[in-house]
Every structure is written in structure tokens, then in C-alpha cells.
């Protein structure tokens, strides 16, 4: 698929500036229609809201469609237990919520769940880390391996590194998969 200009250089050619931002995973997939994504959001919101009611958590639920995915955010002040250490409870809840959506729609869902702004703040931190790592690799010209991260976290870091014009890959097995950053002339 050619899009008329040469922003999507397949090979890394050193200091080629990436004008169009980071490469998106699955960018070639057809766009999903907004209506079914909104339905995903509704089902997910019901599922999560039911849990909040039972467990007596105060939280408002926002729904959104972001980058071809439904996004459901629980906003509130005392939701730390639902995020957990390194977001593990949040990941578990997202997994269950996707299954709840799948049961009702028959389609596998890529819905994103956020609680207490965890993903947004994590994204900022990881973008900064990714950019810093890219700078370090540019400076030293050496391959750099990062700490193990979740799929969501690796995605954010890959995007930041691509945004800085370098190439990165994931290596290792879950749950210890980690990002490797390559210098430009590698």
C-alpha cells in the first residue's frame, strides 16, 4: 500500500525524520465502524458499573472511541485497589471486560479500559522513558535492552522510539517480554 510519499521507509536509513509520527501496529486493518465500537463501550460500561456498585466504589464512567478502539474510563479518586501493583488488577479487569463484550457481540474486542487515569499517566511516563532511551542509544550507538513490560507499555515505548527515528523490537517471552532499541546504523 503506497500512500504517495515516502514517510514509511521500510528500512532504517539513519537519521531519516519520521514526519508522520510513530508507526501504528495494525495500521493496515480496516477501520471498525463507530457504532459497533460504541456498543462495545456500552456493554463494557454496564459490566464495570455493576462491579463498582457491588463493591461500593465511587466512580464515573466515561466512554470514548480512540484509534479504532472503544475506550472505557473509570474516573474517581479512590480506585487504587482496582489498578493494583503495576496495573495488574486493571489488566485483569480489562481481560474480563473484553470477554464480556465478546459474549454479547460474538467479536473479539480490543477495548481499552482505564481506571483512575492510570493508563494516561503511565503513557506519559513511558513516552518519556522511550524518548530518553532513544537519545541514549543515539549517543552511544549501542543496542539497549529495557526492563520487561506489559504489551500496552511496550506499545507506548515502541511508538516513542519510532517517533525519535529509531527502530525497536520486543524480545523474550511473556510476562518477561522487553523492548530492545537499535542504533540507527545497526
Amino acid at each position, binding site marked *: 500500500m503506497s500512500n504517495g510519499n515516502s514517510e514509511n521507509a521500510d528500512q532504517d536509513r539513519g537519521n531519516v525524520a519520521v514526519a508522520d509520527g510513530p508507526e501504528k501496529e495494525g495500521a493496515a486493518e480496516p477501520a471498525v465502524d463507530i457504532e459497533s465500537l460504541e456498543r462495545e463501550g456500552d456493554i463494557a460500561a454496564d*459490566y464495570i458499573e*455493576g*462491579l463498582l456498585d*457491588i*463493591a*461500593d466504589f465511587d466512580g464515573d464512567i466515561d466512554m470514548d472511541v480512540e484509534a479504532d478502539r472503544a475506550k472505557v474510563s473509570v474516573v474517581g479518586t479512590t480506585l487504587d*485497589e*482496582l489498578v*493494583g501493583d503495576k496495573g*495488574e*488488577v486493571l*489488566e*485483569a*479487569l480489562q*481481560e*474480563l471486560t473484553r*470477554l*464480556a463484550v465478546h*459474549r454479547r457481540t460474538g467479536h473479539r474486542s480490543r477495548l481499552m479500559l482505564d481506571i483512575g487515569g492510570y493508563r494516561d499517566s503511565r503513557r506519559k511516563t513511558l513516552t518519556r522513558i522511550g524518548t530518553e532511551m532513544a537519545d541514549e542509544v543515539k549517543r552511544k550507538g549501542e543496542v539497549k535492552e529495557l526492563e520487561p513490560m506489559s504489551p500496552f507499555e511496550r506499545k507506548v515505548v515502541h511508538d516513542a522510539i519510532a517517533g525519535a527515528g529509531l527502530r525497536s523490537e520486543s524480545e523474550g517471552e511473556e510476562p518477561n517480554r522487553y523492548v530492545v532499541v537499535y542504533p540507527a546504523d545497526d
Partner: protein
Amino acid sequence: MLEEALEHLVKGIVENSDDVHVKARRLRKGKVLEVRVHPDDLGKVIGRNGRTAKSLRTVVGALAGGRYVRVDLLDLHEVR
């Protein structure tokens, strides 16, 4: 509250939600939540490599706030 929360989580992901029953049993050092589901749904609540079961346990553990809670997933007709 935990039983109810777990029941809600499981009912939302199975086909036969009317067949979901959660019973709490007290242990000396905490409690067990026995979840019974329709035989056709057992694979679903366990998930590939036990992934769904793990997610359910993680969430219930978080709601239990550090108290020991075991979650057992059983077929509706399983006798114990």
C-alpha cells in the same frame, strides 16, 4: 460482597448465566469461593492456560484487600 462481585464477573462472561452459583465456605485462614458454572462454560471461565481464572482471582484478591480468598471453579454437577 465478594461472592456477589465474583458472581457478577462470571455471569457476564458465560453463556448460561442462570447456572452460575457462588458459595462461600470459611477456612481457618480465610475463605473459599466456590463458583459453579454450566459444564459448557467451564472452559470459558478457566480460559486458555488458565488465563481467565487468573484474572478472576486477581480481581477478587484485590477486592478482598489482602485477606486470603481462594477461588475454585467447578462444573455445576461436580460433587465435593
